[in-house]
C-alpha cells in the first residue's frame, strides 16, 4: 500500500522543523513563538502545549545516553541504488541531496553507548533522511546493531521515525521488514531485551516490523503510529478520520503500546526499565 503518501508530504515540513534557520521557531501545534535555545533546553518540546518537535539521532543521543558514551558503528554502509531507480528525479540524486543536507549516511544511526552506566546498543532513525524510509542500508544496520547487542548480551534500543519502506529500493526494501524480524527472533530466543521507542511518525513498513516488536513498546506523546498513512485511509474509506486517530494515545487505548513517555522523562524511564531487567 502507499506508505509514502504521508511521509512525502512531511519531508519538506520536517526539514523546517528539524533545522529552523532563525533564532525563533513557531510551535506547529499551538503557534507559540519559541526561542530556539529554550526549545533545546526543553528537550525540543513546546512549553505551552507539550508538542514534541521531530528531532534526529544526534539529539536523541544527547538526551538519552550518558555524556560522551556514544560510539557510532556501521558508518561506512551506504545505499547502492541497486535498481537504478528514476522517477521525476534519480534516486542517486535524492541520496546525494539527503547526504549533503543531513550529514547522515542514511536514515538509521547505530552505535553503542551507556545509559546510567549500563551498556546498550542503539539504533536511531532520522526522519530528515528521505522520510526516515527503510531500504537496504537501514535494514542492514538494524541487523548488525542487533547482532552486536546479541553478542554483547546487552539491551537493544531502537528509536523509530519513519514513513515506511523506501520505495526506490522496491522489493529489496520490503524484504528488510523480514530481515529485522529475523534478527529480533534471535534476540528473543537469547532473551536479550529489545526496547522499541516509537516517535512521530512511525508508519508503514517500519511500524509493521521492528517498531511493533519491542519487549516494551514505548511511544512519545502525540506520535502518529499506524500501518497505512491517514491520507491513504481517507482515500479508501472516503471519510474524514476522527481527531486523534493513529496518535500514540489512541494506540495505547487500543492495546498496542506499553506506555507513553514524555521526551523529558524518557531517560529516567529507560533507567528504571534497565534496572528492572538486571
Amino acid at each position: 500500500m502507499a506508505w509514502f503518501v504521508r511521509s512525502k508530504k512531511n519531508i519538506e515540513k520536517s526539514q523546517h522543523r528539524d533545522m529552523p534557520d532563525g533564532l525563533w521557531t513557531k510551535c506547529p501545534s499551538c503557534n507559540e513563538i519559541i526561542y530556539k535555545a529554550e526549545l533545546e533546553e526543553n528537550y525540543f518540546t513546546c512549553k505551552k502545549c507539550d508538542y514534541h518537535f521531530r528531532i534526529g539521532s544526534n539529539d536523541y543521543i544527547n538526551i538519552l545516553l550518558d555524556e560522551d558514551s556514544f560510539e557510532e558503528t556501521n558508518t561506512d554502509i551506504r545505499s547502492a541504488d541497486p535498481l537504478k531507480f528514476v522517477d521525476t528525479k534519480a534516486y542517486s540524486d535524492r541520496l546525494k541531496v539527503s547526504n549533503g543536507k543531513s550529514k547522515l549516511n542514511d536514515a538509521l544511526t547505530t552505535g553503542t553507548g551507556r545509559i546510567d552506566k549500563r551498556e546498550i546498543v542503539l539504533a536511531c532513525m532520522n526522519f530528515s533522511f528521505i522520510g526516515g524510509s527503510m531500504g537496504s542500508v537501514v535494514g542492514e544496520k538494524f541487523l548488525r546493531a542487533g547482532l552486536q547487542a546479541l553478542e554483547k548480551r546487552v539491551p537493544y534500543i531502537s528509536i523509530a521515525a519513519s514513513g515506511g519502506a523506501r520505495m526506490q529500493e522496491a522489493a529489496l526494501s520490503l524484504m528488510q521488514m523480514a530481515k529485522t524480524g529475523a534478527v529480533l527472533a534471535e534476540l528473543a530466543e537469547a532473551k536479550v531485551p529489545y526496547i522499541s521507542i516509537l516517535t512521530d511518525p512511525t508508519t508503514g513498513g517500519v511500524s509493521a516490523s521492528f517498531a511493533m516488536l519491542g519487549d516494551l513498546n514505548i511511544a512519545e506523546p502525540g506520535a502518529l503510529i499506524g500501518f497505512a498513512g491517514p491520507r491513504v485511509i481517507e482515500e479508501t474509506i472516503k471519510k474524514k478520520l476522527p481527531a486523534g486517530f493513529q496518535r500514540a494515545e489512541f494506540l495505547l487505548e487500543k492495546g498496542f503500546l506499553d506506555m507513553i513517555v514524555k521526551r523529558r522523562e524518557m531517560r529516567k524511564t529507560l533507567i528504571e526499565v534497565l534496572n528492572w531487567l538486571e
Partner: protein
Amino acid sequence: MATKFILEFEKPIFELEQKINEMRSLDNDLDIGEEIEYLEKKMEDLRVNVFKNLTRWQRVQIARHPERLITMDYIKNMFEDFNELHGDRKFGDDHAIVGGIAKFQGTSVMVVGHQKGRDTKSNLYRNFGMPNPEGYRKAQRLFRLAEKFNKPIISFLDTPGAFPGIEAEERGQAEAIAHNLLVMAQLKVPILIIVIGEGASGGAIGIGVGDRVLMLENAWYSVISPESCSSILWRSWDFKEQAAEALKLTAPDLKKYNIIDSIVPEPVGGVHRNPTQMFETLSKVIREELDKLMSIPIDVLVPMRREKFMNMGVWKQG
C-alpha cells in the same frame, strides 16, 4: 480456453484467432485450408512473440487478470482432503486469508493464502484479497498449529495489500504483520512460499517468510503497486507503466536480486489460458520443494531461513 477478458496487448492475437474461427465455420475447401494453416502459424508466432517480450506493466495486468487462478483454485485442484479452518480465536474470521489442513500427494500440510474474489459479489466478501489484522492472526494460529503437529506450511501470496481502514488500524494491522514476521522466522517446520498473483507490500510479506520463495512467471511482488507509486513519486496516476518499470517487480527481476528462489513457468498467455497445465507444473514443483525441505533437519533449516532473509538487500560498504 475461451476468455471473456482480453488485455489491450493481446488484441492482435485474438483478432487473428477470431478470423481463423470464422474461416473454419465456412466450407472446408482446400485453398482456405492452406490459408488457415498459414494464419494459425502466424498467430502462434505472434503469441509467442508478445508473451516473450512482455513489459513489466503488461505482466502486472496478467497478474490481475479477472480469470487468473486464485488460492482456492490451487487448493481445490492440487490438494486433497482440504478442511478449511476459520478464525483467529480473538476477534473474527477474515475472508481475505483462507487456510486449512490438507493432504498434498499424501503429505499432511497446512495451506494458507490470500483469497481474492471472482466477481463483484465474491470480491466484496473477500475484501478484494486485502486482509484485516485478524487475517494475519488467523494465519499465525494455523502456522503454530502446523508447528505443533510437525506439518510443513505452504503459503500462497496474492494480495493488492493489507486493508487500509479505520478498524484495521484500531485492531493493530501493523502489529499483526510485524508479529507474523517474527513468528515465521521461528517456526520449526518447513515453509514454502508461492507468489501466485499480486504480492503487494507488507500485506504480502505478512504471510511470506519462508525457506523457499517461488514465484509464478507473471506474478509481481513489490513494496507498493505501480499506481500508488506513480501517485506518490510522480504526483499523478498516469505514470503506472514507468513506475512498474522502475520498481522492477517481475519474477525475473526478483530472481536477479535473490529475493525469490525460483520462477515457476506459466502456460503461454498466462495461468488462465491453461489451468490444467498450471496445476501439473506447480504440483511437480511443490513435490520437489517439499521433499527437499523435509529432508533437512529442522535445527539446520530454521537458521538457514533466517540467514536467507538476513542476507537480503544491496548496499555499498567503504
